[in-house]
């Protein structure tokens, strides 16, 4: 982790040097970066994620419309540099407010989020790499020993079974090093209630799993962590969410990323598997279900045409959704008692997945 931080530091400093040099040369400072416009986003089948195309854009401080965002970008780079140097972190919201102290105010948070994405694109590092995190947090539980790299905790180790509610995936955890684990798999769960149930039922022991609560669409720090678990520890990843187009897409984003993060790599886990709840499970397990509403159907239509859904299980399940026009939540299994999911469904499914 540390090596990476010093790379980021160097990149940021180089950006400063470039701008500084341009000013010394009597030039209006400018930067160039890949365009993030939708026309420049394409799906890379090899990488199995969205990537940016070759189109590049220039931000030139000579342009009256560019100069404010340009200043904000350089300010942000300066802030990021300081954050890393001081070993501190900040949040998206925090950045929005911080700007006001430097008289480079953003008109709203979406504007400041945008500049953060600009910096990511410009230096090709994710915001987590320059210590800026979103507000929403997901959680992790399981037999995994980590070592912190953040100041004051540096070198300190904990095992992630330490707290019965799981451990929050914040900046400190996201940047920690993995020391040791006895787990065989990673199980990502969309809903908090289900995550808690699996801890209570000691499912992590039964399946020998590290549990991750994604809390809906997982934040990027969590996606990055999932990738690292997969890559560094060689653990297969299974994703378990609601049986509806939205749940299906949570799995998809963990596997192949989002268009919004097309400028970033290392957020995807291409080998992760969508383990349920499938549309076909609604039939097979006779799950209590609701009709797909208009929004669901519209989303389903979009996903049907999405290149990430072009093959295999995705097309099959979209087909089933279309046929039965029904959806079900993870909790639907409770109809068959509290332990049905742990005793019956999951073992069966995970077994199936091995041969997938």
């Amino acid at each position, binding site marked *: 982790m540390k090596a990476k931080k010093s790379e980021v530091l160097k990149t940021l400093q180089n*950006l*400063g*040097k470039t701008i500084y040099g341009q*000013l010394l040369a009597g030039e209006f400072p400018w930067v160039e970066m890949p365009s993030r416009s939708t026309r420049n986003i394409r799906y890379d089948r090899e990488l199995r994620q969205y990537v940016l195309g070759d189109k590049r854009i220039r931000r030139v*401080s000579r342009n009256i419309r560019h100069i404010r965002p340009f200043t904000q970008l350089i300010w942000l780079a300066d802030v990021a*540099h300081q954050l890393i140097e001081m070993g501190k972190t900040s949040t998206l919201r925090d950045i929005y407010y911080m700007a006001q102290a430097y008289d480079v105010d953003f008109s709203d948070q979406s504007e400041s989020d945008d500049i953060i994405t600009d910096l990511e694109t410009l230096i090709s590092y994710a915001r987590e790499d320059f210590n800026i995190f979103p507000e929403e947090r997901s959680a992790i539980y399981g037999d995994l020993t980590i070592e912190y790299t953040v100041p004051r905790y540096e070198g300190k180790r904990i095992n992630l079974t330490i707290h019965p509610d799981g451990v929050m995936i914040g900046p400190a955890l996201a940047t920690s090093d993995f020391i040791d684990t006895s787990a065989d798999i990673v199980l990502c769960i969309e809903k908090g209630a289900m995550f808690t149930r699996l801890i209570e039922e000691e499912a992590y022991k039964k399946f020998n799993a590290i549990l991750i609560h994604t809390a809906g669409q997982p934040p990027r720090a969590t996606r990055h962590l999932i990738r690292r678990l997969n890559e560094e520890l060689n653990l297969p990843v299974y994703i378990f969410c609601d049986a509806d187009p939205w749940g299906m897409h949570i799995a998809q984003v963990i596997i192949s990323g989002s268009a919004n993060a097309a400028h970033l790599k290392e957020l995807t886990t291409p080998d992760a598997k969508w383990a349920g709840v499938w549309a076909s499970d609604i039939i097979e397990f006779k799950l209590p279900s609701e009709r797909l509403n208009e929004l669901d159907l519209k989303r389903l239509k979009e996903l049907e045409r999405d290149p990430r859904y072009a093959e295999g299980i995705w097309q099959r399940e979209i087909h089933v959704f279309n046929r039965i026009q029904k959806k079900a939540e993870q909790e639907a299994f409770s109809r068959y008692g509290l332990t049905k999911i742990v005793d019956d469904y999951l073992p069966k499914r995970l077994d199936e997945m091995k041969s997938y």
Partner: protein
Amino acid sequence: MSREVFYEISPADFFYRNKDIAGFSNPARAIYSTIRELIENSLDASELYGYPPDIYVRVTADSGLSTTENINVYTIRVGDNGSGVPARHIPSAFGQVFYGSKYKLRQSRGTFGLGGTMAILYGQITTNSPVKVISSTGDRAIHEYELMIDIQRNRPIVLKHKSYKNEDGWHGTVIEVKIEGDYPRAMPKIIEYLKQTAIVAPYANLTFVDPKGRLYRFERVTEEMPKPPTETKPHPYGSDVESIKRMIAVTPCKDMLSFMTTHFHKVGRITAEKFLAFAGISPKKRPKSLTNNDIVELVKAMKEYDGFRSPSADCLSPLGENLLKAGILKELNPEFVSVRQRSPSVYSGYPFIVEVAIAYGGGIPKTGDILLYRFANRIPLLYDEASDVSWKVVHQLINWKHYNVDVQTMPIAVFTHICSTKIPYRSVGKEFIADIPEIEREILAGLRDVARELSSYLTRRRAIEMEKKRIDVFERFLPKIAKFSTELAKEKQVPDVKPLLKKVVKYGAEEIDESQEK
């Protein structure tokens, strides 16, 4: 009313019975009208003789006479440095309706010789007090009169007459009347009237002390005065049966040809001959031999004949572009003002001149609408704005959007001044002008002219503002870029961005240098 009734009662009696139409409909309106009429007489008296007016107005409340809460007896004293009234004319000038020097064709503020006397009449009716008049023409004596009007007979009653030695050669007139009025309610209009008068008479000193002892002073900014009007004879277009009858009664002319050339404006021998031929009247006919019917036919022919030359505007006394501008600048201090005087024009045989102005920003308040200041023969018109021809032009005929004007958000004032030997008021109260097509056309043309100037001013101003904003943006952010990048690059010396700032300035390069020095 028919003419016969008009003559059966005395004019004083008539106006007593119809005080509403002369602007004395209620106590508030009465005190306003009284002050106004007296000030206008004073202005006329000073201007006509070329003295820059010095007018002093004082209103005091007579204590213990209060009838209801606001209505009170007030003593109104108006003094001027005008020509003064010769002693022998004083009783008639102030104690008789329709007497005075104004019943002629010459632009003056009053039209009927009525206003001042009406105020005296009203005071007499409501307080049964005489009017006090002190006047001198600058000769050896100052005369002081106390007068009342015999309403039935339209005759002055002299109660007191004194004369003093005029040691300093003072000339002017002081009038003091007691009237029942409502000053608190009239106050806003009175102040507004004074202010607008100051706009249209920037060469006058106006001093006003109100019943609470508050002093309002409007000082002159120039001694330059508009050229006084010359008297003219009536133009044939503007004649009517009654006026021709009167002329015939007094004319020394023995034939129609000389009658035409003697009594009418811009009618020479050739014009007279052609016209009489057109009218089928022998040039040799004796004027006094015309029958009623002949006169009616004559007037009809005068209106139909198109060979008369237009009346000359010598009898008019417009304010002039410089003075109007000075008045507006003095009282309202706008950021921009454009003034236009139109060439003389004619309606129904009466010459008139329209002067217009438009002012923007500065001291002009934002009211959500265009502020309209109307003047006629240098009198501000304060009531019934929406019935006035100027209102129609401003609000119905001009599309302000064409001139980059946003009526609702911009502080804009429009000024219209119409001078004529006969202002086509719609009422005796002299508050709003009828929409005579000729006048409407002139106002419209004039306003379009000044509006175009405003429009190009606004465009220029916007461009400068935009440029300023643009430079501000660079001034704000470039130094920051320099600072942040210096920090980020771990350098010590912050690069100088001044050369870059110079490059972004398109025009107004001085401006940026100035702001940097601050």
